[in-house]
């Protein structure tokens, strides 16, 4: 039986069009864009062509794009780059973020906290939407940056970025958004943000590709030093085949969004409806409506996520969990904790992230296997009191 891959939020298979565009570049476009000979000039031309294409797709100018080695680097560059450039101008510079960010935002912020920055994390409601009143309260004259993810990778909730932008625009703080997810509209003008992270490896693009959009007029300090690539803001020879693939992946993402990804949304809602129906006491996590079209996420009380994942894996289905036992830190999902779920049931969290090839028939198989597994794990389990909580 063909495996059913429902973990596209962790990593997407590469799109055939992306792969085709990269094969050509890998074969023939091997020059270094800094070289002045023909191979170098050809590489430079392709690099700038890809940059222009992306700029058009996300409604910015080409020199507002810095290519990076993925989403984590772009997030680090946004946080540390702004802190490095503007931090010194304030007595106690403040950066505000949310309680449900990715580790590549949280960790650099914790690092800055040790260096004397004031860091605040805005809470979220039960659906994972950030508390705008708290955000307003936290912003002061020392605030240099606010970073809020565009959509959450664990529960799929999309943040009201325009409203957040409206709040920030009245201050002199800058607004960064981590948009490292598939099926998000990357139009920076519509979003009203100053900096944005895109991650190719989650878009059906190549792994280890990404970019940071930085609005004109904003300066950032580099975090990788060397030669003067990316206008001195990111040293290292450009990954040209990767950048060409990234450009193709962004193009396909924007095209699919224009079609509203209707079929994907339908399969997602079908998944949600059927899991909630088939699994007693299961809970949908994240905003029921305002969520990514590919993510259906749940808590299944009385089960533990690693056991769920391993049993589904044996039956040919790949999903993921925010259970403590599945993490190297042995800590349960900070996102679900921030949303107010109790630790004991967070161990039973399950995320389904769809691809466009997934059919209703495959979802039917997944749900029926999941049902059997949950019955078995609940039978083996010594923790039965969750029903009353």
């Amino acid at each position: 039986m063909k495996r059913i891959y429902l973990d596209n939020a962790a990593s997407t298979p590469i799109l055939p069009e992306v792969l085709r565009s990269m094969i050509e570049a890998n074969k023939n476009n091997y020059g270094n864009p800094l070289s002045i000979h023909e191979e170098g000039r050809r590489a430079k031309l392709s690099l700038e062509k890809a940059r222009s294409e992306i700029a058009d797709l996300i409604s910015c100018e080409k020199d507002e794009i810095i290519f990076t080695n993925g989403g984590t680097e772009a997030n680090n560059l946004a946080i540390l780059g702004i802190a490095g450039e503007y931090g010194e101008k304030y007595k106690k510079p403040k950066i505000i973020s949310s309680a449900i960010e990715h580790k590549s935002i949280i960790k650099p912020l914790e690092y800055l906290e040790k260096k004397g920055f004031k860091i605040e994390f805005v809470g979220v409601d039960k659906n994972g939407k950030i508390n705008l009143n708290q955000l307003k309260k936290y912003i002061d004259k020392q605030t240099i940056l606010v970073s809020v993810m565009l959509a959450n990778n664990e529960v799929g909730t999309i943040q009201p970025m325009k409203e957040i932008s409206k709040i920030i625009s009245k201050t002199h703080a800058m607004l960064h958004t981590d948009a490292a997810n598939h099926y998000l509209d990357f139009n920076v003008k519509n979003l009203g943000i100053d900096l944005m992270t895109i991650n190719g490896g989650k878009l059906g693009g190549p792994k280890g590709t990404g970019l940071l959009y930085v609005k004109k007029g904003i300066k950032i300090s580099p975090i990788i030093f060397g030669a003067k690539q990316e206008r001195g803001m990111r040293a290292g020879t450009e990954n040209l085949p990767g950048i060409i693939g990234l450009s193709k992946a962004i193009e396909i993402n924007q095209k699919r969004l224009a079609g509203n990804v209707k079929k994907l949304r339908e399969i997602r809602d079908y998944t949600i409806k059927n899991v909630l129906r088939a699994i007693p006491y299961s809970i949908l996590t994240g905003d029921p409506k305002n969520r990514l079209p590919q993510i259906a996420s749940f808590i299944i009380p009385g089960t533990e996520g690693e056991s769920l994942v391993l049993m589904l894996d044996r039956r040919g289905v790949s999903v993921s969990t925010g259970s403590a036992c599945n993490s190297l830190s042995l800590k349960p999902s900070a996102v679900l904790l921030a949303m107010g779920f109790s630790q004991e049931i967070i161990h039973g969290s399950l995320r389904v992230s769809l691809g466009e090839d997934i059919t209703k028939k495959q979802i039917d198989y997944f749900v029926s296997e999941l049902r059997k597994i949950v019955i078995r794990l609940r039978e083996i389990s010594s923790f039965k009191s969750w029903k009353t909580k």
Partner: protein
Amino acid sequence: MAEDKIKKNNIPWVYNDIVKDHFFNPRNFLSEKEIGKFKFNAFGEAGNPVCGDMMKFWLWIDPKTEKIKECRWQTFGCGSAIASTSMLSVMVTENGGMTLDEAIKIKPRDILERLGGLPDQKIHCSVLGDKAIRNAIDNYLRDVSN
């Protein structure tokens, strides 16, 4: 072991084959059908669901020989927690059953040895069965002396 498998080009599993077997085919767990029917004279537990691992043991101890003749368990937890409890249930009942003196001395490393090892970060949280067994034996001895 994992390295051998990489060489052979097989994708290694998360745990070794013994752990895998006990996870997918757990021995002696208290099934839904047996609840209220399984005859026991000792009960013990360890862990809690907040941490993510909790084990319960029901034992039938022969009052004359003080050997564990039958045992059942339930575990809430990850793959290694289920497998380690299952293995422990085999250890205390095999070869005619362990005496209480022997069972009370079981250490996590004895279970680990029989399992052929677990990843380091899993040992502390998922091997709690020995504490649950000890708790059951303590409860039994207290009941008997009363």
